[in-house]
C-alpha cells in the first residue's frame, strides 16, 4: 500500500502489521465459512420430508443478488481509487453507492428468507433448511457488519479527512468487502447453482 503522504518507517511497520493481522483474521473467517459449507454439504440431503433444494431456490433471484453484490464491490473499488487521489467528495459518493447496493442485497436476501418462512420452509423445518439459513444468514450478517463499519468510516472521513488511520481502515474495509464477494460466489455456486441442477 503506497500512501500519498510521506511515510516514516514506523508508519510502514504499522501498515504492514495491520495488513498482516487483517489477512490472518480474514483467513480465520474463511475457515469459519468453510465449516459452514461443510455442514451444508453434509446436511443438504437432510430434508426430512420438507422442501428440497431444487424447489426452494430461485435462480434468477440469486443471480440478481449476485450482480448487485458484485457491483457494490465495483463501487468499493472506485472509492479506493478516489481516496488514493485524496478526492473526498468522490470517495464518499462511491461509498454511498456501495452502501445502497449492499443494503439492496440485504433487503433481497431478507425478502427471500421471509418468503421461505412464510411458505413453511423456515430454518427449524429440516436440517437442510437449518444449514441453508445459517450459511447464507452468516454471510448476510457479515454484509450488515460491513455496512455499519463503512458508515462509521465515512463519518470519520468527513470529520477528519484522509488521515493515515482512515486510509488504512478504508483499505482493510475494502479487503473485507471483496472477501464477502468471494464467499458469495461460493454460496452462489454451491448452494444455488448446484441446488438447481
Amino acid at each position, binding site marked *: 500500500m503506497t500512501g500519498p503522504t510521506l511515510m516514516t518507517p514506523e508508519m510502514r511497520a504499522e501498515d504492514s502489521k495491520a495488513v498482516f*493481522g487483517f489477512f490472518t483474521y480474514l483467513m480465520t473467517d474463511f475457515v469459519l465459512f468453510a465449516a459452514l459449507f461443510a455442514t451444508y454439504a453434509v446436511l443438504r440431503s437432510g430434508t426430512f420430508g420438507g422442501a428440497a433444494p431444487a424447489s426452494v431456490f430461485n435462480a434468477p433471484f440469486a443471480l440478481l443478488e449476485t450482480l448487485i453484490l458484485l457491483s457494490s464491490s465495483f463501487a468499493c473499488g472506485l472509492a479506493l481509487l478516489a481516496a488514493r487521489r485524496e478526492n473526498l467528495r468522490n470517495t464518499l459518493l462511491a461509498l454511498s453507492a456501495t452502501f445502497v447496493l449492499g443494503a439492496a442485497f440485504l433487503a433481497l436476501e431478507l425478502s427471500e428468507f421471509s418468503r421461505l418462512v412464510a411458505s413453511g420452509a423456515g430454518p427449524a423445518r429440516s436440517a437442510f433448511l437449518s444449514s441453508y439459513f445459517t450459511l447464507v444468514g452468516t454471510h448476510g450478517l457479515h454484509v450488515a457488519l460491513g455496512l455499519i463499519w463503512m458508515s462509521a468510516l465515512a463519518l470519520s472521513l468527513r470529520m477528519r479527512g484522509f488521515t493515515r488511520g482512515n486510509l488504512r481502515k478504508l483499505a482493510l474495509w475494502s479487503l473485507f468487502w471483496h472477501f464477502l464477494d468471494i464467499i458469495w460466489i461460493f454460496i452462489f455456486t454451491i448452494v444455488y447453482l448446484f441446488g438447481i441442477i
Partner: protein
Amino acid sequence: MTHSMLFGTLSWSVFPTNVVAIGGGVILVGGVLAVAGLATYFRLWKYLWREWLTSLDPKKIGVMYLVVSAVMLARGGADVILMRIQQATSVGAHAGIVSASHFQQLFSAHGSIMIFFVAMGFMFGLINLVLPLLLGTRDVAFPFLNSASFWLFVAGAGLVNLSLIIGDFSTAGWLSYPPLSELAYSPGSGVDYWIWALQIGGIGSLLSGVNFLTTVARLRATGMTWMRMPMFAWTVAGSMSLVAFAFPVLTVTLALLWLDRTLGMHFFTAGGGGNMMMYVNLIWSWGHPEVYILILPAFGVFSEVVACFSGKKLAGYASMVISIWGIVFLSWLVWLHHFFTMGAGADVNAFFGIMTMIIAVPTGVKIFNWLATMYRGRIRFATPMLWFMGFVVLFTLGGVAGVVMAEPPADYQLHNSLFLVAHFHTMIVSGVLFGYFAGITYWFPKIFGFRLDEKLGAAAFWFWTTGFILAFGPLYVLGLMGATRRLDHYAAGLGWQPMFIVAGIGAALVMIGFALQVAQVVRSIRMRETLRDTTGDPWGGRTLEWSVPSPAPEYNFARLPLVHGRDPFWSAKHGGAELWGHEPYEDVRVPKNSSLGVLIGAFALLLGFGAVWHIWWLAALGLLGAVACVFVRAFSENTERTISGERIAHLEAAARRHAALPV
C-alpha cells in the same frame, strides 16, 4: 419452562438446594466478597484499575492471565476432590456424596475449565509475559486487541463460575456430544452456560491467536531472521497458526448447537434430518489441534529451559523447527482417532491411526534433541529443570499409552475407559501444565524482579509428580479392569474401590503440591529482598529478555537490540557482537491505558448471561455494547503516550547498576 420478558427463564428455583452445591456457591461468593472487601479496605481499587485492569502492557496482562488461571485451577481442583471422594465412596449400597447429575456437572465443568481457563490461560499468560521480550520488541502487534481478548477470557471464566450460584452447569461432558446436549435430553440452562462460556472465551483465544501470530511475523528485532528466533517463538508461531485455523471451527460448532437448542434447528438433533456424527467430527477437528495448541508452547518453554540450565546451545535447532511444523501439519489429520468406535470403515480408521502414530516421530525427535542439549552440558537442577525431568518421564510413558490407542483395534477396548482418561491427563498435566510451571518459575524474576523460593518449588514438584503417579496409575489399571469413565456409581463386586481410594490419595497429594506453590509465591514475596535479581540475568540466560533489567521496564528495551545470531545475549556476554549502540536514548511511545477492554468483557458477560437465560434485551444490550466499544476504539486517536529519552536514561541508570551487561 416459563418465560418472562424481563427475566427470561430465570426463576427462584435456579439457586442451589443441596449441601455440596450450596457449599460451592458460598465459597465462590465469599471469595469474591473477601477480595472485594480487602481491595476496598486497603483502598486498592484505583491502583488496580489504573495499574492493572486497564493496562495494555502485555506483561501486566500476562500476570492477570496467570492469576485468573491459578484461581480457575483451584476451582477445577475442587471439582477433582469431589469427584475423587465420590468415586472412592459411591460403591454398591453406598451412594457417595453427590447426586449423579451433580457428579456429571463436576466432570463437565472440570474438563471445560482445565482446558479453556487454566491451560489456555497459562499459555496466553506466558506468551504475553515473554514473547515481545524474546523477540526483542516492545509490545505485541495489537495491544488493545490483547486486552479485549483477556477480558473475553475473564468473561467466559466468570460465566462458568456463575453457574455455581445461578442454575446448573452442563451435565453432558466437556465436549457435549449431541443428542445428549440437545434440548430434548438437556432441557435446562447447563449446556447453554457451557456454550457461551466457551464461545466467549474461544473468541478471545481466536483474537489472541491472530495477535501473536502477527507479533512473531512482523515485530522481530532487527537482524532476527526466522532461523535466529528463540525456539519458544517458533512454538508460539506454530501454536497460534493452529489457533487461527482451529478456533473458527469451534465457534461454528458451538453456534450451531446453540441454534439447535434455541431456535429449534436440526443440525445435530436425533431426527429432523440432523447428523450428530457431524458434531463429533467438527468438535474434534477443533479439539485435536487444540491439544497441540496447548503443548507446542510448553515444548518451547522446555527448549529454552534445557538450553539455559545445561549452559549450552539448543541442539538440533533445524530439526526442532521441522518437527514443530510437522506436528502442526499432522495435527489436522488425526481427529478421527477420538471416535474409532463410531463404526467408520477399516481403511478410514487405519489411516487416522497411522497419522496419529506418525506424530510420535517429531515428538520423539524433540525429546532426543533435548537430551542432546544436556549432553556435555553443566546441568543445574533448579526447579524449571525438575519440571522438565518430570515431563520427560511421564510424557514418554503417556505417549506410549497414546501409541497403543492409536491402533484402532486396541482403541476399541480402551476407548472411553479410565485408561484413556489416564492417558490424556498424563499428556496434558506433564506436558502442558509442567511446561507452564517451568516457564513461570523460569521467567518469574524477569517480570517481578525476584526469584521464586527454590525449596518450596522443589517440594511442590515432588508432591505434584508423586501425587500424579498415584492419582493416575490406578486409572490405567482400572481401565484394564474394564472401568469406563464418568461413572458416578459402580457395583461393589467389581473390586475397583481400592484403586479409586489410591487415586484419591494421589489427588490429595497433588492438591498439597498446588498449596505449596501458593505458599512458594507468598514466601517469595516476603523474602523478595534476599531473592532479588539485581543483574537481570539470574540463570545465566541466552536470549534477549535477560539483557534488560529485572523487573523488565514498561518499554522492555531502552534501545532496540540488533541481533547477529541465535542466543544473542549469550554471545554478547561472551565477547560477541554488541546488542545495541551507544547513541542517546530516544523517546519511546507506549499505548495508553484503556478501559474499553474491561467494558467489552463486561458486555460479553451480559450477552452470555442474557443468552443463557433467554433474557433477550440483556443479550442485545451486551452485544451492542461490545460492538460499540470496538467502534469507539477503532476511531479514537491519541491512544499513545511518550516516555522521554531523559526519563529512560534515568530509569536505566538506576536499574542497571548491577547488570550483567553494561549499558
